[in-house]
């Protein structure tokens, strides 16, 4: 599993409206690329295009990887909604991919992943008996179970409380290590803790910022994280004033 660098070049439109003007988005190999910007600027559209999902727009451009192979089946997706199926147990949800493809699921690995996300002993529980934080951990294990080199994340932690969010960020940083990650987020602190590349999307295009050079995941109380988050917040604040 070699994690590729990803490049998206092009523009997206919806009828006569431009969703985003021609731009070039880069996600370096094996790093956390955080994508920020005000609502409706096209962040999720960009992520859905990368995932190969119907984004409801006409995309004029190309998506490529530095190893020449298509991104296609190499990406996994995690959203704000945990997408757990209520009729399947926690373990069955984690092995959903195998179930949907008609393959034999690796139960040992699934159980190991549940241990990794801190849900040992929860395998036979049903989703409706779990808290929001626990459900999102199951979704994390399900995403890891697919073992794809690229992870596309659309605000996966934003519905969680502060404590659970911090825990999930730390867990993901550890478990996603080595993969190419694109994280759409509204939270400047999240970007400051996790980003190895931070991109702010505005109507004018993309602005790439240099996050702290310390390794991820950074402590939320370290001065460079606070400084960078404040800088991001100011930028986003000014941007939404201008809009």
């Amino acid at each position, binding site marked *: 599993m070699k994690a590729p660098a990803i490049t998206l070049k092009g523009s997206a439109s919806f009828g006569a409206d431009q969703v985003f003007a021609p731009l070039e988005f880069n996600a370096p190999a094996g790093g956390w690329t955080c994508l920020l910007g005000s609502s409706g600027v096209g962040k999720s559209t960009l992520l859905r295009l990368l995932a190969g999902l119907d984004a409801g727009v006409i995309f004029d451009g190309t998506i490529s990887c530095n190893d020449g192979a298509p991104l296609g089946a190499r*990406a996994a997706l995690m*959203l704000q909604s945990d997408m757990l*199926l*209520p*009729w399947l147990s926690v373990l069955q949800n984690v092995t959903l991919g195998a*179930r*949907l*493809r008609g393959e034999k699921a690796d139960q040992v690995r699934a159980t190991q992943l549940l241990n990794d996300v801190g849900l040992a002993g929860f395998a036979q529980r049903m*989703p*409706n008996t779990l808290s929001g934080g626990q459900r999102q951990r199951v979704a994390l294990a399900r995403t890891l179970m697919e073992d794809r080199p690229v992870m596309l994340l659309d605000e996966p932690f934003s519905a969680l409380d502060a404590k659970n969010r911090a825990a999930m960020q730390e867990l993901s940083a550890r478990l996603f290590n080595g993969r190419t990650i694109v994280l759409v987020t509204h939270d400047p602190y999240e970007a400051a803790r996790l980003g190895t590349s931070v991109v702010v999307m505005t109507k004018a295009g993309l602005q790439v910022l240099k996050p702290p050079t310390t390794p991820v995941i950074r402590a939320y109380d370290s001065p460079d994280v606070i400084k960078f988050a404040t800088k991001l917040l100011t930028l986003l604040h000014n941007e939404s004033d201008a809009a």
Partner: protein
Amino acid sequence: MMRSFPKMMLVGVAVVISWQILVMLLALPVYILPGPIAVALALWNNLALIADNALVTLIEILAGLVFGVSLGVAVAIIMAWSSSVRALLQPLLIFSQAIPIFALAPILTLWFGYGFGSKIVMTLLIIFFPVASAFFDGLMRTRSDWLELAQIMRAPPFRVMFFLKVPAAMPSLASGLNIAAVYAPIGAVIGEWVGASRGLGYLMLLANGRAKIDLMFAALIVLIVMTMLLRAAVHVISNKVLSRYIQT
């Protein structure tokens, strides 16, 4: 359902008492409206006869339910599977609903005979549509993020249908089944009215012809009780099976 049982009993008792009072006050002759006591007596005196005929009707209802639900489920899945079949079948389904099924009863008797066949087909036709349309509706409303997850996971369409869409549509199927349980006895009885030699509907016609109105009411009450029990059974079973399919 279970909690409302005492309330239903109370309503039942109130209806029976008012019925008896009405009959006594108006001094209605027994061949117009027999009182509940007369009906209870008729039921007791003809227990074996009524039970025999009730069994026939019950078999017709259950067989009609099994075939009607199977056909409804199959058609719903086929329609949800293929958009071209959907385009073909949808107008046909709506057209079929414009046919008064009651008016078909004599034809069904002609085609399928006086025995079980025509009643089962009648029941099947009546419950097919509510089951097919409720289940189809559910199959077309699978949460889009679940479908996208399946797409990312490279799931083939066949497995998406049977491992995602069908389980996700279980609550819709349950509402279709609950309607079917109420409609099924209507189909069987209409079939019997048009032409039969056995069954509760047949017994009611026979009793009516011989001015045995108390027996007719006794058969009617057994039919009502059967329908209510059937409905309760479907409700309980579908709730039990479905509790895990319902999103929380």
